[in-house]
């Protein structure tokens, strides 16, 4: 049996297992408007993550007792497909998915102008088709594009990414093994227009200084992801334009 703790997450040249620099994102591709029935939708490929987000609404609230006479409610359902992980995932809700659904809904609720649609529900469905670490951030990133695609009024799009610590070093956009073997993980979502943080979690071990730096690193990356989100929406209505991803930069 190989002792996995001996895997080096950062090599002697300071590069990570997939060849990335510590502050480098994985390749991200976003496409808006990919589903026919949904009012809005988006598909994101982020590293090997493949995630699809769909939005229905504003529509009647189900169940009715959740209805708010002053504003729309935002309901999110995050789910992993049975084949999305290394082992088959038993279908149906679990505690992890429930928690992610809740914090994603709260992040979106901050940016959606819910007051314009009293007594209604905005329902967001996030399906992870292939998981490769960072699905909650990629899911929220896709979901906010889907909300905009549905024509729902909002303050801004919500980019999201995790920063973390691997082999004692701060790393951006935590990968699968870094997540499993690293020392800390900090998923964060940021509203570039207002400078607000709308999703923040952390587990592991950071010093105060490391935490501050990790947050800054994630916020800077969110600004980069924001451009890819905006581009995905604009591209839907200007089909001749070329795909703008972060891959060009990644290659440099």
């Amino acid at each position, binding site marked *: 049996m190989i002792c996995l703790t001996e895997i080096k997450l950062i090599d002697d040249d300071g590069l990570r297992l997939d060849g990335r620099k510590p502050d480098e994102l994985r390749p991200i591709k976003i496409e808006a408007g990919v*589903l*026919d*029935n*949904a009012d809005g939708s988006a598909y994101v490929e982020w590293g*090997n993550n*493949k995630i*699809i987000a*769909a939005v*229905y609404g504003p*529509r009647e609230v*189900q169940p009715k007792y959740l209805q708010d006479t002053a504003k729309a409610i935002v309901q999110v*359902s995050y*789910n992993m*497909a*049975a*084949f*999305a*992980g*290394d*082992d*088959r995932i038993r*279908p*149906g809700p679990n505690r992890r998915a429930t928690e992610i659904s809740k914090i994603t809904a709260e992040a979106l609720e901050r940016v959606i102008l819910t007051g314009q649609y009293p007594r209604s529900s905005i*329902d967001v*469905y996030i*399906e992870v*088709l*292939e*998981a*490769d670490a960072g699905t909650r951030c990629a899911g929220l990133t896709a979901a906010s594009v889907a909300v905009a695609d549905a024509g729902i009024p909002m303050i801004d799009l919500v980019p999201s990414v995790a920063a973390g610590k691997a082999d004692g070093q701060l790393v951006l956009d935590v990968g699968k093994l870094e997540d499993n073997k690293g020392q800390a993980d900090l998923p964060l979502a940021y509203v570039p227009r207002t400078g607000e943080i709308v999703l923040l979690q952390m587990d592991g071990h950071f010093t105060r200084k490391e935490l501050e730096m990790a947050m800054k690193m994630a916020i800077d990356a969110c600004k980069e992801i924001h451009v890819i989100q905006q581009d995905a929406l604009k591209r839907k209505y200007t089909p001749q334009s070329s795909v703008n991803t972060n891959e060009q930069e990644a290659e440099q």
Partner: protein
Amino acid sequence: MKKTIIPEIKKEFINKLADEGTREDGRGLSDMREINFETGIIGTADGSVRLSLGKTEVIVGIKLQIGTPYPDKQDQGVLMTGCELKPMAHPAFEGGAPSMEAVEIARVVDRGIRESGMMDMYSFCIVPGEKVWLVFLDIQVLNYDGNLFDAATMAGVLALHNTMVPAAANELGDDYKLPVTLWPLTATVVKIKNNLMADPTFTEENAAYARLTISIDDNGDIRAMQKGLKGALTYDEVIRALDIAQELTQNIRASLQKSTGV
């Protein structure tokens, strides 16, 4: 599944069109919608396909794991087919436990594949009574516009043909192609007034009186059937449905085989 109200005038319009031998989207009564697919799209699955039948879109992922056989089939592997109709795919779908409709789809797809003999379940036995391959076939519906039976069966069969057995990861030698050869397919026909229509859309399904799904193997023999909806079919209608299904599945099989290079 939530009840969907189809406007009365739309039902009448569909009836009128059918009497003229045509449909809302301009198809003839026995025509299938356009089929597009891509295999090997999910890295975490051992086999996968994304398939669209008109606006109906599904992903099927195959995962193989080692497990114990059923007590009455100690020397055979196990095929498990699952389907969920997630609210992402259609406003009529609800969250929570798989609906009756989802269970029916999974079982009809499973029956067509199983009964065709496409998978030799004995070849999935590793140690009789102890270790066998469990084959999970999971159907994920992305967008629903009717006729999941045929879309999911096609996607399931294509995904099985795309599957590599993960032997190396389980210390059983090199990975190898899943030993499958046949191409069982289904054709679903609905009855609207006195007309039979193949490959119904969501609206047509909801305007229909009765439905019949027929699973047909490579020889044109019938391997499974499922009648659905609250209406009934006459003997003659079943015969006409068989004619349509045999012709349709033969054509689809040929084109699927051609595009996968079989």
